[in-house]
């Protein structure tokens, strides 16, 4: 327990540092992107320099950069992420609303990617050098190397345009009405008992989820396979067999838990990949989540939106990694002591 506490303490400190540095970088980079948020908002026609200066002053964009940064950072620390330049709405509630949509997608992709990856990895390791092993490892390699947007487009062409099984994009169909309770669309539809809406949301989720989960599943499969192959040569596996366990029994009772320790790390890292992937995937599938919102923000040079979204992303990744680190203590008793 002492070690866990120590880990927690160090990790929290590091995380705060990472986010602080990141905020500076993001702030700086946003100002380096060519284009002007006000011009993007108002258009270039019929706008005088005087008017432009006035709006800039109103938004505080005329101050020196470091003053702008410090003022923004100070407000963020107090939970105020500012207002969107585009529509003047407060950024944080908007971000959180979109995040809920993305979260459902990410959770679905994590579950799909991890379980599929672990399953394929274990079977490949146990049936090493069989056709299944070779085929799935080739598949995994292509999964790791295939660009997300391309996979998304292929899936849309195949399953929506040609086969017409799944919709091409969006969160729900036009005629479906959602009742908001928690803000999580799928959860809300379940709570309010709207069977039709649930099915509709799920149908819309399938392709984006597969797109998101594909590359991570491949990486998890490769990691799991390597890890199982390593564990399977350990003495305690032989000891298990020597006391009369079947091979399947040893794998289930003694190999899995030990082999999963490095896999958990990979899954933790994958959460970051899901969030990054969601930016592209949501754009491809017109999915109204955080990724697409941020993409729109970037297009419009909407500084507060983009900065807020990235800080939020970073915070989520940091928290997830912390949870992963702590989950070791659930899996590995050596960490607990």
């Amino acid at each position: 327990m002492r070690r866990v506490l120590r880990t927690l303490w160090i990790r929290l400190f590091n995380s705060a540092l990472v986010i602080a540095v990141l905020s500076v970088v993001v702030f700086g980079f946003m100002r380096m992107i060519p284009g002007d948020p006000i011009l993007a908002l108002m258009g270039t026609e019929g706008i005088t320099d005087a008017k432009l200066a006035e709006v800039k002053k109103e938004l505080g964009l005329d101050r020196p950069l470091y003053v702008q940064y410090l003022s923004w950072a100070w407000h963020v620390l107090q939970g105020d992420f500012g207002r969107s330049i585009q529509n003047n709405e407060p950024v944080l509630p908007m971000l959180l609303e979109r995040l809920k949509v993305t979260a459902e997608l990410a959770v679905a992709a994590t579950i799909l990617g991890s379980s599929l990856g672990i399953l394929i990895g274990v079977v490949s390791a146990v049936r090493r050098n069989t056709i299944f092993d070779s085929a799935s490892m080739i598949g995994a390699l292509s999964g790791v190397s295939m660009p997300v947007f391309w996979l998304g487009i292929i899936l849309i062409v195949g399953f929506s345009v040609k086969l017409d099984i799944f919709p091409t994009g969006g969160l729900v169909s036009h005629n479906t009405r959602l009742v908001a309770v928690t803000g999580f669309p799928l959860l809300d539809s379940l709570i309010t008992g709207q069977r039709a809406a649930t099915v509709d949301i799920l149908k819309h989720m399938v392709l984006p989820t597969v797109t998101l989960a594909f590359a991570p599943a491949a990486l998890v499969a490769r990691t799991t396979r390597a890890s199982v192959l390593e564990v399977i040569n350990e003495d305690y596996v032989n000891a298990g067999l020597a006391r009369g366990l079947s091979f399947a029994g040893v794998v289930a009772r003694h190999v899995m838990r030990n082999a999963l320790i490095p896999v958990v790390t990979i899954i933790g890292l994958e959460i970051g990949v899901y969030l990054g992937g969601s930016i592209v995937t949501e754009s491809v599938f017109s999915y109204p989540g955080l990724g697409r919102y941020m993409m729109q923000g970037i297009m419009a040079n909407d500084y507060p939106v983009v900065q807020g979204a990235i800080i939020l992303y970073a915070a989520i990744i940091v928290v997830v990694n912390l949870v992963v680190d702590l989950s070791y203590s659930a899996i590995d008793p050596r960490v607990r002591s």
Partner: protein
Amino acid sequence: MSAAPVAARPAPAAPLLAVRGLKLRFDTRRGVVRALDGVSFEVAPGECVGLVGETGCGKSITARAVMGLVPAPGRIEGGEIRLDGRDLMALPAEEWRAVRGSQVAMIFQEPKRALDPTATVGSQIVEAAMLARRIDRAEAKRLALDTLRQVGLADPERIMRTYAFELSGGMAQRAMIAIAVVGGSRLIIADEPTSSLDVSIQAQILRLLQDLRRRLGSALILITHDLGVAAENCDRIVVMYAGQIVEQAPARELFRAPAHPYTERLLRSLPRPGRDALSPIPGTVPDLIDPAPGCRFANRCERAGPDCAATPAMSEIGRRHFVACYRPVRPT
């Protein structure tokens, strides 16, 4: 045993384990490694047999073969392994599995690596008891506690909840021994059970194995590279060299009057207080990929002659003293 009249074999002499003509190969990229070549030995009920030899002589792989756990890419090419007269190699895989843990059990060299690092000692011993004895969990737990006490672990309730990393090497080996004996096996195979332990702990563990053997009446195969350990613990010793058995004899006899030149030279290379000089064996162990026919020790043997190009058979040169050599060392 079945009631059918089996070929008349005097009951008292029936060995518990009989390994005959065991051949085992590894198909590697470099070629076929003949890891075991015609290994034959017996273990009587309750007997302690030492399997000694240097790295690569095949003593550990013999143990694995008896357990039916030959690691890939090894495979048994010929011979038989009979336990209580039953040919294990003829059994379907499932039946051989049922033999493991209930009739033959194994103890490993590094106890802390032979215990699952993420499972409690208790869960592993209960697992062994349930599998071997087909009993329910509650009964298995009672048996487990009792067995842990028998192997000298005070406070078995606490030990049940511990993990391997929380135990010292000696305690972990006691726990492994408990896991091995909880199924009631009549044959325990201990593969270098004390090589990773300190001498004072080694002595405790060896003593424990002897006590348990007497108390439970099970036979013990003690695999070791340490001739001293074999001498002090075994009734009979089997000496292996390069995949073959070169000599077997009652322990005292072997050390008093070694007959195979390899055994004799091995003993002369042992350091001990009062010895003037060691006499190392010249040369190295032959490559087991396509070894030359005949005695595998011939290339290092000062007594070798032209006849050694043919494989020597085991011959009995004294009471229960066998040697595979045309020119054995005669006691002076």
